[in-house]
């Protein structure tokens, strides 16, 4: 039984789902239908909005501090951030301002299409980051994404940077807040999936960085190993 062509049934199920009386398999089934039936999903959303003000009458109870500690631990806590994070924070303005890094970026942008086909076909990359090795000043990693795409194409310009038995983890370093993992660069080329469109996830990220991590990436959600490469991330159209 589906409720697509039965507006009254749809309305009743949506209301009971939002109220919470729809249980068990009926609840699972409605969740599945919601994914395919936009009108049903909308009806549930409307019912949730109708009933939600009732929750404001629940007596607030101060949440024990360990809840927040646990949330932080699950997301990768601020503790792991000291050291690595301080270093990044220290030279973060440099990454944006350093004319050398920007020049390297522009040079790579100019050379890229000629050297290899664009990583995400048919769409010009809107966000581009060029990460350099601070010792040699040479660009070693390029990452690109189209504005509305959730795919980030990453390429190691020098395959020799890959380290056997370890992972190179790519981080977005936003203007505010801690670094956010974008995924692993375990091969010469990788397509990483962003948490949302590039506009959303990279729009306020002036810098990308790569840290050396245990195989599979940092266990804490924050960088734990040395920062090997970094560079500006810019939107160029």
């Amino acid at each position, binding site marked *: 039984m589906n409720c697509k062509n039965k507006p009254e049934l749809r309305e009743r199920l949506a209301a009971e789902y939002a109220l919470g009386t729809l249980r068990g398999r009926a609840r699972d089934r409605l969740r599945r239908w919601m994914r395919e039936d936009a009108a049903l999903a909308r009806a549930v959303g409307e019912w949730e909005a109708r009933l939600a003000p009732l929750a404001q009458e629940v007596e*607030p109870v101060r949440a024990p501090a360990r809840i927040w500690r646990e949330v932080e631990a699950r997301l990768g806590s601020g503790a792991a951030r000291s050291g690595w994070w301080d270093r990044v924070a220290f030279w973060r303005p440099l990454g944006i301002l350093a004319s050398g890094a920007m020049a390297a970026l522009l040079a790579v942008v100019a050379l890229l299409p000629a050297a290899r086909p664009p990583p995400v076909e048919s769409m010009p990359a809107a966000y581009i980051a060029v990460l350099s090795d601070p010792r040699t000043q040479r660009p070693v990693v390029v990452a690109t994404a189209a504005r509305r795409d959730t795919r980030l194409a990453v390429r190691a310009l020098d395959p020799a940077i890959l380290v056997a038995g370890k992972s190179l983890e790519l981080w977005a370093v936003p203007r*505010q807040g801690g670094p956010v993992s974008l995924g692993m660069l375990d091969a010469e080329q990788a397509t990483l999936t962003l948490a949302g469109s590039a506009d959303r996830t990279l729009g306020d990220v002036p810098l990308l960085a790569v840290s050396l991590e245990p195989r599979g990436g940092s266990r804490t959600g924050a960088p734990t190993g040395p920062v090997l490469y970094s560079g500006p991330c810019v939107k160029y159209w």
Partner: protein
Amino acid sequence: MAPPTQETVSADPQAAQLAALLAACANRDRAAFGRLYQASSAKLYGVALRILRREDWAEEVLQECYVSVWTHAPDYRPGLAAPMTWMTSIVRNRCLDWLRRPRLEVADEDGALTEAAESDSPGPLEALERAKDRHAVARCLAGLEARQRQAIALAFYDGLSHAELASHMREPLGTVKTWVRRGLLKLKSCLELQEQA
């Protein structure tokens, strides 16, 4: 079918602030996430505690919900739901999923649930009475027949299923289901009238 307009983001400065914090969370701003937690956790913990009636369960669920809020912040659309509506729905749904785990069906160990049912669920229902001026939904709920109102309040605040409602209100399942269904229908038409007014 116009979407409900009570509690829209622009109308309410607190909602606007929460929406701004959620937008910052979407940009992976951990400081904003901390402020969002501070501004919302007491209310949401209260909601979870009321439904689950056990502190350890409520803590576990709240942790999961805030991790989920952080993860899904980029998906939040201010035009579709007020921030508290969005977060409350995450918490209530997670609580109901939690209660479904078979071994948890006997949740009312200390009898608090029965007590709440017998005393007509005093906490939130009394608060609702006071909230009539602030929320159209509280006003409309107050206009329902007492048993309909009680059934809906017990389902919303205490997370009772139809079967649990029947057992705690000591009425046949079919009767309780009818109260809920008719109550919800009346609630909706009352809210629509209020919006037009």
